[in-house]
């Protein structure tokens, strides 16, 4: 009997697609601690993205430009609507808002050095502007956030542009977090908080509550800075058509639209993965709002959230954006999650490429930390050079694609240059499914 039963074939152990190992580990963690998981970064789940789009390039019906020889412009001017001093950038790839506090001082300096070397802008974050950051950034955008941590009118006047942050892609509708490990003496002083506490940032601005108020708030910022600075409004991608329309109505010079792949220093995992929409789905409604108001290219659109290379830049611009912003990719260029630190990532219970506990302040790369020893690992000159190299590569890659499409400026790329690989991407980006003329929701199959 026992011999017979031994011969019965056994099914292989089968893992559930629904209850996969990651899901089950989170259930066990939640059961053990009683509190939600907090982490940094953006959405990690697979999402419809720029990889689902392709450029058609030129052939018989389109005329390409000669690579390396014929001019393909990359510059962009931001803030042409009302500001007396618009910003002129050499590349449409900008550095997204990241705070001193979330990032170490040397990391912020590296961002400034790298961006300035290629003629683009950096952006402050929650907690205000540091002199180092101002000093190393030729063009610095000053974020005006709900918490107003470190906000003061002197820094407002020192900035080259002001970004009113309504929300961000990783957590639209949520405020920031900075846990006690990173609230050092300097960070606490800048934010006017007790040292070492777990900081909660408010999710709404304290002195305005709706689009009509925002209009008055923008007018106040313009009055204080004598109408010199471009004023951006940053929103997390949720209802892009209406948010962009309301930002324009409120008087924005520039709208920044951040998809759910955009990173955060720290927030709840459930927030990052389940609130907001991917940037691919957000660009066309945003551009539509601008076009319906007759403001496309008059109010500039910056998009962010998962921009990784020149192809992503070119696709974002072809869909109608004027510029893009990078955060996570810039940190990787500085050295975040680098495999040469694998042994140290293992000690933290993770692996290079997956490390996202930025809020704990123990980043072996010295970037998302306030630990004085760890941050020494960032050499701002070398890291800044790596970022500059990376930004140059992205710009050149975008030019390669634009020339192949016969465009003498990145801004001449258009939806007509694109097709989609999936029905979902086709519907979201409103470009035809490859090999067809079908755009779900727009044309009949």
């Amino acid at each position, binding site marked *: 009997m026992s011999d017979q039963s031994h011969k019965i074939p056994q099914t292989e152990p089968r893992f559930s697609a629904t209850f996969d190992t990651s899901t089950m580990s989170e259930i066990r963690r939640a059961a053990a601690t009683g509190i939600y998981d907090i982490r940094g970064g953006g959405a990690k789940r697979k999402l419809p993205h720029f990889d689902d789009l392709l450029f058609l390039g030129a052939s018989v019906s389109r005329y390409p430009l000669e690579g390396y020889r014929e001019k393909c412009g990359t510059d962009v001017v931001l803030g042409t609507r009302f500001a007396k001093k618009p910003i002129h950038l050499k590349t449409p790839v900008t550095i997204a808002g990241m705070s001193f506090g979330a990032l170490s001082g040397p990391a912020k300096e590296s961002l400034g050095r790298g961006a300035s070397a290629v003629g683009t802008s950096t952006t402050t974050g929650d907690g205000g502007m540091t002199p180092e950051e101002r000093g190393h950034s030729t063009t610095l955008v000053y974020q005006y956030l709900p918490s*107003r941590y470190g906000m*003061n009118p*002197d820094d407002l006047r020192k900035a080259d542009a002001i970004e009113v942050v309504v929300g961000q892609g990783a957590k639209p509708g949520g405020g920031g977090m900075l*846990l006690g490990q990173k609230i050092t003496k300097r960070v606490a002083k800048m934010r*006017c908080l007790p040292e070492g506490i777990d900081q*909660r940032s408010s999710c709404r601005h304290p*002195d305005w509550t709706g689009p009509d108020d925002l209009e008055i708030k923008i007018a106040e910022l313009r009055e204080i800075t004598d109408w010199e600075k471009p004023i951006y409004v940053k929103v997390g991608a949720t209802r892009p058509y209406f948010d962009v329309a309301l930002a324009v109505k409120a008087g924005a010079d520039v709208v920044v639209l951040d998809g759910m792949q955009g990173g955060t220093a720290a927030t709840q995992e459930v927030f990052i993965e389940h609130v907001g929409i991917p940037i691919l789905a957000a660009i066309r409604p945003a551009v539509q709002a601008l076009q319906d108001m007759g403001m496309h290219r008059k109010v500039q659109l910056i998009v962010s959230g998962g921009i990784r290379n020149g192809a992503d830049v070119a696709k974002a611009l072809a869909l109608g954006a004027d510029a893009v912003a990078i955060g996570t990719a810039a940190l990787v260029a500085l050295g975040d999650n680098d495999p040469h630190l694998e042994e140290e990532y293992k000690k933290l219970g993770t692996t290079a490429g997956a490390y996202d506990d930025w809020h704990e302040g123990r980043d072996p790369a010295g970037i998302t930390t306030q630990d004085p020893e760890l941050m020494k690992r960032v050499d701002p000159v070398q890291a800044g050079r790596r970022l500059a190299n990376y930004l140059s590569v992205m710009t050149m890659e975008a030019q390669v694609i634009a020339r192949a499409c016969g465009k003498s400026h990145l801004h001449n790329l258009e939806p007509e240059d694109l097709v989609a690989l999936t029905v979902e991407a086709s519907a979201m980006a409103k470009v035809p499914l490859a090999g067809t003329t079908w755009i779900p929701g727009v044309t009949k199959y």
Partner: protein
Amino acid sequence: METLTFDLDKKPLREINQFLHGDASTLNGKSIVIENPNGAHNIAVGLKADVEVTIKGHAGYYAAGMNQLAKVVVEGSVGSGVAENMMSGHVHVKGFASNAAGATANGGLLVIDGDAGLRCAIALKGADIVVGGSVGSFSAFMAQAGNLVILGDAGEGLGDSIYEARLFVRGKVKSLGADCEEKVMGPEERKILVDLLSRSGHGDVDPDSFKLYGSARTLYHFHVDNAGAY
């Protein structure tokens, strides 16, 4: 003191604010009068000189916003966000104030003779605010530092999620917000209160008629047992 008068009926606000942002050496010590404000928003915002500005009537949103050094007197009532993010100086509202009065103010003194609306002193970061009347609900929400003196009553949720600010209330408090509790007023706090009463024209009010509220500091670190309060 040299006095200059602007009439908002005749001169655009932009020109008046531009003048008020002029070189401090030419503005310091001057007295400016703004007539016919008629509830305009953003009057006298972003001042950074030791100048005295008198607004002869009601002002709209953000009157004297982000003030530095200047003394601004409003001979009327104000809209939302009066003296928001003030860094220094003195703002005196002789009438009533709407919502978010003194929001995120870092320094200086804001005096409101009448009542203030919702969220007075929200996210206060070090300034002093004295309200002669009552304040609305959710005042001193997430107030980080500084002092709020209320001679009248306070609405619901006073001091919700408060950090290190001090709240002195003479009248009734409808309810306290999460992590806000009554404190014992020691000599140091009493001295602060007496000084603020004196500087705001309430020197005759008995400091012992006030109660002090501040942070219980139980929400300073994330803890599962506090989950309901976050």
